[in-house]
């Protein structure tokens, strides 16, 4: 039953558009994604507070307040549709009944919004991947994994319309490899370890979704590529490094789709465009709209192919206007009006070009997210037979894209960045042809960090 994507879902880069996906889906209360409209995906989290049994009433009241705000604001803003994501916090996954309780609260508010004002809407629920509570992580058994699996099941039963996760398999190695600027180690983590874990995990999630007749959304390489982006923004890692990790990370997220996920991908999965190019499923993206959660060099270009437009996360605190989630929902709503008016008026390519061109030569991280780059990286991925070789190919294509932009005089890089680009290029060229050879070398270097049995190795 595992899918094998050997060609792209689109013919050319210009087929990659916002609001349109080759394989639209319908979820929740008649929310149709990828068929001509972009909708907001609202995200939120708790403000500073203690999350335990004793404070549970306060926790609940925050989610009730957000649910009420959503009903009020969706009318005020004339929203044509809305996704809301409930990202569980670790204790809500450890105690699956807690996550389920909040799921049912949010589901109730969405149902009311749908009944009261006809809002098309859906609830995405994302349990926390707490399997790295031990080091090395125990991925396929033990208390943490049991809780994660139970959390998916309980949230599905409580009213989730689609399930997602930001899975962590391979992160224990990727973190360290990135600190040392070791691209070989990154490829090992992303191309060898992570795909094995994503496959294990998504087989389970897809089974749970099919049992509950809900939608298996997608995964996110957040813990890998967004960590690299954050390290780059702090000056800890070169931007080119983060850009190449981004491309490389798409393969492990693709595995979820091979196992039956149908999208929309997670908002923080900036690898989403590559997934869309390959699988044809709708994607969620975030950019400037997520400046409440993290800064980034891809604020506009990230929107170029989105089907949902998200704010990633914001505490339920008070701004001068009202609650911070409402403020960011307003921002998302107005951005979505632009996407949708562009589609309606046939100017979406002009608008997409603005979104793309305004960012891509400001940062190599933005460059690899353009539709052209997306098409090239996705093409490189589908040509290769194994996850390891797909990951290496994606990385090499990203290097080639950046090099070409430099050669064309369009991208200016500081000398330190160029130096690292060549260093990464050499590492990638030196990768062994055979996966087993890499596994052998890497288990010497990183073996203390992971347990082979967690990856079926």
């Amino acid at each position, binding site marked *: 039953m595992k899918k094998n994507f050997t060609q792209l879902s689109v013919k050319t880069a210009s087929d990659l558009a916002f609001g349109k996906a080759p394989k639209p889906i319908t979820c929740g209360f008649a929310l149709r994604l990828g068929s001509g409209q972009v909708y907001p995906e609202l995200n939120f989290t708790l403000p500073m507070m203690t*999350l335990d049994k004793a404070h549970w009433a306060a926790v609940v009241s925050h989610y009730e307040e957000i649910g009420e705000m959503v009903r009020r604001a969706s009318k005020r803003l004339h929203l044509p549709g809305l996704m809301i994501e409930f990202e569980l916090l670790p204790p809500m996954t450890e105690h699956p009944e807690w996550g389920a309780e909040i799921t049912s609260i949010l589901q109730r508010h969405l149902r009311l919004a749908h009944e009261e004002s006809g809002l098309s809407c859906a609830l995405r629920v994302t349990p926390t991947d707490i399997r790295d509570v031990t080091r090395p992580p125990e991925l396929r058994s033990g208390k943490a994994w049991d809780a994660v699996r139970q959390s998916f099941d309980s949230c599905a039963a409580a009213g989730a319309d689609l399930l997602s996760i930001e899975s962590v398999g391979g992160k224990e190695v990727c973190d360290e490899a990135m600190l040392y600027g070791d691209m070989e180690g990154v490829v090992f983590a992303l191309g060898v370890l992570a795909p094995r874990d994503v496959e294990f995990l998504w087989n389970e999630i897809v089974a749970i979704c099919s049992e509950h007749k809900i939608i298996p959304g997608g995964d996110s390489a957040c813990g890998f590529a967004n*960590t690299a982006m954050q390290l780059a923004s702090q*000056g800890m890692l070169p931007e080119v490094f983060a850009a190449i990790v981004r491309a490389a990370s798409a393969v492990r997220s693709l595995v979820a789709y091979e196992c039956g996920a149908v999208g929309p991908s997670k908002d923080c999965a900036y690898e989403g465009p590559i997934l869309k190019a390959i699988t044809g499923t709708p994607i969620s993206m975030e950019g400037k709209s997520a400046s409440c959660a993290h800064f980034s060099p891809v604020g506009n270009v990230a929107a170029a192919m989105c089907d949902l437009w998200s704010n990633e996360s914001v505490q339920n605190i008070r701004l001068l206007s009202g609650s911070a989630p409402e403020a960011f929902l307003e921002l998302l709503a107005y951005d979505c009006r632009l996407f949708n008016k562009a589609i309606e008026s046939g100017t979406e390519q002009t608008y997409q070009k603005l979104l793309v061109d305004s960012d891509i030569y400001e940062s190599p991280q933005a460059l690899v997210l353009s539709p052209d780059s997306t098409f090239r990286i996705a093409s490189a991925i589908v040509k290769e037979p194994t996850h390891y070789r797909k990951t290496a190919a994606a990385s090499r294509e990203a290097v080639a894209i950046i090099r070409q932009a430099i050669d064309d005089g369009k991208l200016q890089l500081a000398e330190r960045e160029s130096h690292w680009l060549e260093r990464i290029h050499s590492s990638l060229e030196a990768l062994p042809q055979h996966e087993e050879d890499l596994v052998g070398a890497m288990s010497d270097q990183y073996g203390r960090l992971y347990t082979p049995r967690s990856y079926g190795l």
Partner: protein
Amino acid sequence: MNELDELAQCLGQGQTKRVADLTQQLLDKGVGPQRILNEGLIAGMAVVGEKMRSGEMYLPEVLQAASGMQASLRLLKPYLVKEGAQPLGKILLGTVKGDMHDIGKNLVGIMLQGAGFEIVDLGLNVPPQKFIEAITDHTPAIVGLSAMLTTTMLNMKTTIDAIGAAGLRSQVKVIVGGAPVSQKFAEEIGADGYARDAVLAVDKVKQLLGVSAQG
């Protein structure tokens, strides 16, 4: 260039082997281990820290320099012990209970080590009791607490309060950091310092211990 300056420079260039060789040469010439440490290693790492701050060096390069420092320290250690030399200070680090994020804390540890401090890292998801035991065992000068979630940051306060209840608060300074943390929050929970990033954490530690930039 004298050999101490050369040692500092090779450190910054990540020439681990050369750093070890130069250390041995200096020791053989009878240069005092404390002088090698201060004028060679810590001086070299201070330049590295500066370059990191100004964006001229990335973390992998800093780590390369740090491993040179470790190689040199392995040679110096027996001499330093013999002389009864004091390390620059010991720092206890940990991510508080309920929080599984450790990359930020690890960065702080790496930067502090490079600046000549000794690090005891308790890892992540550390309950208050474990901090208390470690303070008793290791007598650090400073305890660094990390939290990345709005729902775990109050465990920093719990931890500081527990250290106080154990009668150990006056023995250590406490610094805090992490995405949701601010100077204001640090003050409110009774911490002694806050740093926005790993580079600033080194400054804050030095300031709290009254150590100058050159060590």
